[in-house]
């Protein structure tokens, strides 16, 4: 069993909307795998099927070697989930939430209290364990959810937008926990996000997903290499793309407003020739390509623009309301 998760043409249709379209992914044991895409791309739907919350319309998948259709109970025992919407119980204390979870997941009585202490320590909530969750901040709730997700020693941990709506410092804390998890807890992590920096920072491999399809899947480094170099942004009075054509290393030229945006291979060697060709410029900005550039080059869209609109999830929500 080399793979923690393997999907076979996994598909989910809601009425006439195809939320997830014949997805095939293989996730290795012990890796942090990211599903990156705009809101409504089908990330949460994919995860819901893998967690056996939703039944696929077509296709299937295995999680920890168990089939999601035929062995849902074994799948559930193998996984931990941190939901996008916090699902910890406000009217209970942090510790009580964990205790009930331990009972529901059949954590043996002999190690129950010890495990609860361990995960509380891991997320730094020991001092607040006896307070009602309704007095917790957003970051504390998320940390409690993560603690709960790890409590029953799952083989696969799903994190659905783990840092959505959290402040930068809390995000940083959560990233630190997540990074070390696969080694410390022998767990495979699948996370969804529409934050580029999050995917880049945490994931060993990423699948970019848009409109229910996997567009490309690879390590962040190789994905960025595929973009074809660094991004050079020149601010100039008369942005004329013609004069950059034929310069060594230039793979792509775009003009946006008063700027020329050039994708440049081997920028340390080729930048001088480029600047010479440019002549007088008002400003130069050079940065390594990011996953956003990857997304842009594969879909022709900016992931951040997409995020604002609300895609399939939004449409499905509307349909649900209408029903």
């Amino acid at each position, binding site marked *: 069993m080399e793979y923690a998760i393997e999907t076979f043409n996994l598909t989910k249709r809601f009425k006439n909307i195809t939320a997830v379209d014949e997805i095939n992914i293989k996730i290795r044991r012990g890796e942090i795998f990211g599903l990156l895409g705009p809101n409504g791309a089908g990330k949460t739907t994919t995860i819901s099927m893998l*967690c*056996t*919350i939703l039944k696929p319309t077509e296709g299937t998948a295995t999680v920890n070697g168990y089939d999601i259709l035929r062995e849902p*109970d074994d799948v*559930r*025992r193998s996984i931990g*989930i941190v*939901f996008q*919407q*916090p*699902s*910890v*119980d*406000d*009217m*209970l204390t942090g510790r*009580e939430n964990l*205790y*009930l*979870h331990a*009972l*529901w*997941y*059949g954590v043996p009585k002999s190690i129950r209290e010890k495990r609860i202490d361990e995960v509380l320590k891991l997320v730094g909530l020991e001092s607040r364990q006896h307070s*009602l969750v309704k007095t917790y901040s957003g970051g504390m709730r998320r940390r409690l959810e993560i603690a*709960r997700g790890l409590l029953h020693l799952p083989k696969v941990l799903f994190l659905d937008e783990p840092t959505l709506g959290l402040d930068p410092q809390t995000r940083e804390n959560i990233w630190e926990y997540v990074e070390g998890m696969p080694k410390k807890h022998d767990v495979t992590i699948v996370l969804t996000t529409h934050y580029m920096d999050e995917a880049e920072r945490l994931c060993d491999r990423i699948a970019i997903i848009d409109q229910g399809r996997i567009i490309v899947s690879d390590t962040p480094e190789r994905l960025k290499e595929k973009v074809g170099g660094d991004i050079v942004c020149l601010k100039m009075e008369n942005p004329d793309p013609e004069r950059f054509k034929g310069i060594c290393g230039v793979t792509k030229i775009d003009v946006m407003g008063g700027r020329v945006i050039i994708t440049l291979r081997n920028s340390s060697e080729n930048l001088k020739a480029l600047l010479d060709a440019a002549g007088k410029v008002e400003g130069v900005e050079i940065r390594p390509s990011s996953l956003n550039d990857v997304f842009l080059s594969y879909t022709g869209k900016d992931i951040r623009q997409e995020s604002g609109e609300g895609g399939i999830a939004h449409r499905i929500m509307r349909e649900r309301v209408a029903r």
Partner: protein
Amino acid sequence: MSWMEGVYALWLREVKVFMRERSRIVTSIFTPMLWIFVFGGGLGSTVEIKGLNYQVYIYPGILAMSVLFSSVFFGVYIVWDRKIDILKEVLVAPLSRRTIFIGKVLGGCTDSMVQACVMLLMSLGIGLYIPPAAFLLALSILFLLALSLVSMGLIIGSLMESPEGFNMIVSFLVFPLFFFSGALFPLENLPLWLSTVTYIDPVTYGVDALRTVIIGVSQFPLYIDILVLGGFALSMFTVGTEAFQHMR
């Protein structure tokens, strides 16, 4: 037996929440108190039924009513749990839906029983003494009633997407169940249509059983009451298990 631990955890959650939301118990006892002391006391000053003061006569019916209301309305919490997303945690746990249903039912019944005990003690306030044996018997009858009605509330809750929808359906159900149960009047000499409906209303048999054990007045033999209540509880329980299988 891991499923029993699951049931225990579900029950424990309901009980803890109930104990923390004390307002729940206060509000659920307030209305029955108005019925007993204002309505019952008011009419009781001039009305007697079967040689009993009206206030004493309706007391068993009001007991049933308090359990009826709190039990069915318990179903709304599952709608809220879904709305604020805490139900998901339970639904994705490796628990069968039957286990979840049993845990929730027992939680709801416990809430109703706490309330029933308070209501039973209130009998002292109207000068009615209930001997310990009758007290326990009444509590068992109320438990049977709560079992069916909590199941009913949970069935409706499992189908509803919004608390408002739940409340609307329930008002159309709970008030008729109460008024047709004969909680406020004797079942003799009723017009045919009314007596037919009261005979169909399962709560009628709960009220009748409670009257038998508390004030010694009855329409049906006790075993008939218990059989009907038991059958009602069993069928609601079965339907409820099924409804939870299909709940999203």
